[in-house]
């Protein structure tokens, strides 16, 4: 699930740089719940119908399959609202990450923060901010090269900060 969209928000409240990256999700959790209800309802209807004629072993398979479907849909729905905002505001690099309903904020000093590429040798490159022994991966909702493009843009901002 790495299909994501990026939105360059207009810097507000005096922010010098602001990027909001949202997970691309083309179905709402409510629609997903309706879909699940309809699918599971149909499957259980069929299972119960056959059980009424004595063929009850179909029902456990309906249950197993519906459980797999629920797990997949939950996985999608939990992350439907995930986002990352990265902004430089009043001399502070702020990163806000929403992951499965939990929002966490991180602050870095742009003078000290370094951008690093993780695992560049295998799989898609991952990008992280590192400062004072702390490391935070960013751009997780972007794929491959778009992640590096974000990093390059942020690198320009950080460099200009260092130069004063």
């Amino acid at each position, binding site marked *: 699930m790495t299909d994501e969209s990026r939105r360059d928000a207009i810097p507000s409240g005096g922010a010098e740089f602001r990027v909001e990256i949202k997970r691309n999700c083309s179905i709402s959790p409510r629609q997903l719940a309706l879909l699940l209800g309809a699918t599971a309802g149909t499957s259980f209807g069929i299972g119960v119908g056959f059980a009424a004629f004595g*063929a009850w072993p179909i029902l456990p398979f309906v249950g197993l399959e519906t459980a797999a479907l629920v797990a*997949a849909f939950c996985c999608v729905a939990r992350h439907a609202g995930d986002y990352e905002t990265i902004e430089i505001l009043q001399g502070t690099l702020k990163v806000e990450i929403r992951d499965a309903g939990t929002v966490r904020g991180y602050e870095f000093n742009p003078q000290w923060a*370094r951008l690093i590429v993780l695992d560049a040798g295998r799989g898609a490159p991952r990008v992280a901010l590192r400062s004072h022994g702390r490391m935070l991966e960013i751009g997780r909702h972007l794929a491959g090269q778009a992640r590096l493009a974000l990093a390059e843009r942020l690198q320009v901002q950080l460099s200009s900060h260092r130069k004063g």
Partner: protein
Amino acid sequence: MSAVLDTHGQHDEHAHHPSGIMRWVTTTNHKDIGTMYLWFSFTMFIVGGIMALVIRTELFAPGMQIVDPDRFNAMTTYHGLIMVFGAIMPAFVGFANWLIPMQIGAPDMAFPRMNNLSFWLLPPAALLLIAAQFVPGGGAGVGWTMYAPLTVQAPMSMDLTIFAVHILGMSSIMGSINIITTIFNMRAPGMGMMRIPLFCWTWVITAFLLIAVMPVLAGAVTMTLTDRHFGTAFFNAAGGGDPVLYQHIFWFFGHPEVYIIAIPAFGVISQIIPAFSRKPLFGYTSMVYATASIAVLSFLVWAHHMYTVGMPVEAQLYFMYATVLIAVPTGVKVFNWVATIWRGSLTFETPMLFALGFLFLFTMGGFTGLVLSIVPIDVQLHDTYYVVAHFHYVMVAGALFSAFGGIYFWLPKWTGRMYNETLGKWHFWLSFIFFNVTFFVQHFLGLAGMPRRIPDYSLQFAEFNVISSIGAWGFGLAQILFLYIVVSTIRSGKPAEQRQWEGADSLEWTHLPSPPPYHSFETPPVLR
């Protein structure tokens, strides 16, 4: 491992992935997995095809020639199972893997690891189906429908078959969940459900069909297993069970299964015909609703496969009328394809030839289906070669021709190389002619009363069987040409353009080069 940011020289994405066999074992990339599905499908097509040739060679003349009756029955059974579950279904899952992410503007499938597992469940299941013929007692000559109570008495190969069916079902369920989640959740911004290519719509509908019916098949074979080994009597009349219940359960799965095979084929055809007619598909919305209607109706007609089993005349009438009703949405689809062709700027490259072959022959298969849906006629034709001819017109001229057309259509996109058009046309015409030589005469055999699933037959059927067997060998040999065309395209085809077919307008043609990059869309495309 980490490095201070330096993005130069990191654009060679393939360098980051395992190479050799491990690339294929561990891959989570939809294109790799799509490729594996397609090669697996072709391998199974050859295996099932060899069985078909054994069957047709045995039937070349009356009397027993090369196999004993038990082996013949086993061949018939596993030919059906392998072609349905091992060849045709995985072929269209291969298309789905390759095309759905590219057509909706996504970088990959929603659950790539599950996608990998879905594929790698198939080879062990295929091995079980093949191995089942070599275990003590021989293969289970029960037919692909696995009717009870014959299955209760079958040798241990039946257990291997049941296990294989379970594994294939798991693979299908995982694939369906992946496809549904991908299409509903990962469409590019601006791509509403009524803007996705029809191929994606047909796969959404197919995935829901699979989810609805796979537990039914799993339950059916599990009850067969418990009847065989655990003393239950679901289907065993000797213990108070009901063999007819099995038929109801199986066909509740089995009839939608026909559409699980046919509907993605409709999707492929709906991409090819507009491209070579240089016109948008006529009646996109009605195509979507017609496909959905076919899917819904497919749940309501199962007992037309069992008119002769004994049922009240009211039930026979209901199933007959409901079956005839399916001709309406199917007619809508055929009408729309013809209307798309009408006054189009037509050219007849190989994919279009296969699409037109599909249109012509699938419609014939549909008509013979209507003939069989009429109770008094079906009572005469049930379990004759007319039925064999009918479903091969649907499965081979329908699904297989569609798959061939789709491969020729997308091969330039997938490989970045163009196939040899002359050889492609040879492949089409050989397949078209030999297919009809094989199966058209089987209508006459059926009308004359030749039963299906017999290794020997009365002398009166000899001539048509000779013709049919010659056609089968010709059709089989023509597929070697197909293999040669595909391999030579991959190895030495001329470079293909991004939009090899100027009439093709879905995202994979308009937004991606040929071949597409390892990750199709780094960011979703912007659609107007």
